[in-house]
């Protein structure tokens, strides 16, 4: 039965395409766009531990970008989006990406929270010669061992997390560390990148314990961390895992004696934890809604739709979509290589990116911020959570090209 309906669907699509071709005025861009449509796929965690970081919010942000682009440019082609839940499983994500590229004419996939899913999706994108621009995943493997010319890494990565907040904590006196690491690509990258920064700044790592992704009980891991007597317990995890670890650490009375360093903390996590629990924590972010008038404007517009302030990932997804659509317009085609070529030539300064430029290894380099979480007394209005401690220029925050392990870069 499904074959029949798909067949009927195909006929309808063909008929629609013919009708469009007859009715719409022929423009140059039209003939060079596949199906006369730019289709963006939001592949994210809709129901799991990262759904507050991206999830439905990323879909809202992408749709906002599409609406804004259409209102400003009135393109002759259609732009739409589809979304799916990858359930944090690399196989589900990669299968979905393959299906989208093959059968749905998806031109670009974004969000892709979860590094394991992102690495799998990047491989599919390269095979299909289509783009994936990920704002959600953090692992530096995406621009090193697993880099390719069809995968762009936006927003942040684990090296920047280590180089901004990690360095600040070590220089602030947190010399001995113990890691609580989510046992997959992201956690492992974050632990190894942070270890590099700690050692370079005269600190030491006493050990680490690995926990499965989406762990429900952190007690035994935290007891090991406590027994290590390290000054700092580094949380090389994210989303729901970080929230659960911090809550459990509070209940165990670990926090006053040892410092907890959430290496990747999103504003949604702070909101769930409350300022009472998270106050004073130093963290890295690529974006915060209350930085300046432009960011506030976007934050408030997003808030009206989602009833929450956007995270770095959700705002990044808006920025990706807008900049991608502009590049498609400039290139006059949705061909991945042509669009990437345009993006490489552009210097970006929008509400999200400051001094952004796209490197050959696929890294979008831009300024990052070192934040400190406010105390409940300092917070004056809802979502007033961070104080900007430092702005770190992109070239200092991100891994220098000289250290790159990306084979694509070494060849050229």
């Amino acid at each position, binding site marked *: 039965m*499904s*074959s029949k309906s*798909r*067949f009927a669907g*195909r006929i309808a699509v063909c008929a629609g395409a013919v009708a469009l071709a007859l009715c719409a005025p022929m423009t140059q861009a039209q003939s060079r766009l596949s199906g006369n449509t730019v289709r963006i796929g939001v592949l994210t965690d*809709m*129901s799991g531990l990262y759904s507050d970081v991206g999830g439905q919010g990323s879909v809202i942000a992408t749709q906002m970008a599409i609406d804004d682009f259409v209102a400003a440019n009135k393109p002759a082609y259609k732009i739409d989006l589809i979304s*799916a*839940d990858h359930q944090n*499983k*690399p*196989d*589900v994500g*990669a*299968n979905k990406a*393959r*299906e989208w590229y*093959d*059968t749905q004419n998806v031109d670009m996939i974004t969000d892709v929270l979860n*590094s*394991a899913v992102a*690495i*799998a999706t990047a*491989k*599919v994108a390269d*095979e299909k010669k289509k783009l994936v621009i990920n704002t959600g995943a953090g692992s530096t493997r995406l621009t090193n061992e*697993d880099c390719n010319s069809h995968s762009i890494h936006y927003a942040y990565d684990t090296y920047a997390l280590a180089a901004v907040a990690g360095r600040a904590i070590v220089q602030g006196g947190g010399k001995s560390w113990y890691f609580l690491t989510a*046992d*997959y*690509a992201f956690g492992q990258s974050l632990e190894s990148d942070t270890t590099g920064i700690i050692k370079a700044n005269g600190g030491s790592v006493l050990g680490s314990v690995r926990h*499965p*992704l989406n762990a429900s009980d952190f007690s035994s891991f935290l007891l090991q961390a406590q027994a290590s007597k390290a000054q700092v317990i580094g949380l090389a995890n994210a989303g729901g895992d970080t929230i659960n670890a911090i809550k459990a650490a509070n209940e165990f009375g670990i926090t006053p004696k040892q410092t907890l360093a959430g290496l990747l903390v999103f504003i949604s996590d702070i909101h769930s934890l409350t300022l009472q629990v998270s106050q004073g924590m130093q963290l890295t972010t690529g974006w915060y809604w209350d930085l300046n008038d432009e960011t506030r404007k976007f934050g408030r517009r997003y808030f009206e739709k989602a009833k929450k302030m956007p995270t770095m990932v959700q705002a990044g997804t808006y920025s990706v979509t807008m900049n991608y659509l502009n590049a498609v317009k400039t290139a006059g085609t949705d061909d991945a290589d042509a669009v990437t070529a345009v993006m490489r030539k552009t210097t970006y300064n929008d509400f999200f990116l400051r001094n952004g430029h796209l490197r050959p290894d696929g890294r979008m380099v831009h300024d990052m911020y070192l934040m400190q979480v406010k105390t409940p007394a300092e917070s004056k209005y809802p979502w007033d959570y961070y104080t900007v401690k430092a702005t770190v220029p992109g070239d200092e925050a991100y891994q220098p090209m000289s250290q790159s392990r990306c084979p694509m870069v070494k060849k050229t």
Partner: protein
Amino acid sequence: MSEPRAANRDFAIGFVVVALAGVLAPAIGLYPVFVMKALCFALFACAFNLLLGYAGLLSFGHAVFFASAGYALGQSLKVWGWPTELGILFAVAASAALGALLGMLAIRRQGIYFAMVTLALAQMVYFFFLETKFTGGEDGLQGIPRGKLLGVVGLENDTVLYYFILAVFLAALLLIYRIVTSPFGQVLKAIRENEARALSLGYDIERYKLLAFILSAGLTGLAGACKALVVGFETLTDAAWQMSGEVVLMTLIGGVGTLFGPVIGAFAIVGLQDQLADRVGSWVQVILGVMFVVCVLGFRRGIVGELGAWLERRRQPRRPGS
């Protein structure tokens, strides 16, 4: 005397229908990668059915054979750079060897204990896959190249790979038919019906069971290798106990102990998961659970089993003397 001939004819008709449907599927616009995946699961279910349906052994750890073949294929193609055919053979050999090892331990027990032993052993292998380096742990083994068939035909093209997978599937189906209708298969059925009686007739039932287990593991490996080749990666999802449960569900819904039941069951489950995943999210599991309950309560012989019984009832009045 007419019984085996009728069964032969039924199989021939079924086989031709499946083969024709397979050949025509891409022409009517079905997405080849989806059909390939479904074919791999169909083969997996058929291999599992060989054990459950014909030897009466309920293994609750078959997913590890599926996954270990995928990992073996990935390792041999991606890291060692072997040709595709050799990689598939290696993968089948690896899962058959694992099947021999686990089977030897498991067949010493019967019924629920057999199922529990296979589950326990499978969980051990699962955690081995989680911890070892070459599998990539939670990230999975990514980027398995498809390579070339016999060094000439590139399998990168989905249509070419589709017909290759279809050919492998049909060949495996014939092999399973040959196994079940052979004297060996008859002995298996005898063991399923009454183990004590088969033993008293002088059959070394442990040897028969072990051989059935190894054959089933090897064929499961063939399915796993094909699936890894199609999707280009292997992950822990395939090794998890939920996958072992899914194959039981496919077999039961299609019809346990029938040759085509598992094929229908696999297509039904994989198709439902594919169609429903985006619409209802995690509710897919609930829907599958309800289907399972309905199947067990309402039509215990499964789709093909009930169809066969219905055909049998229609044939009966025409037989003289019955």
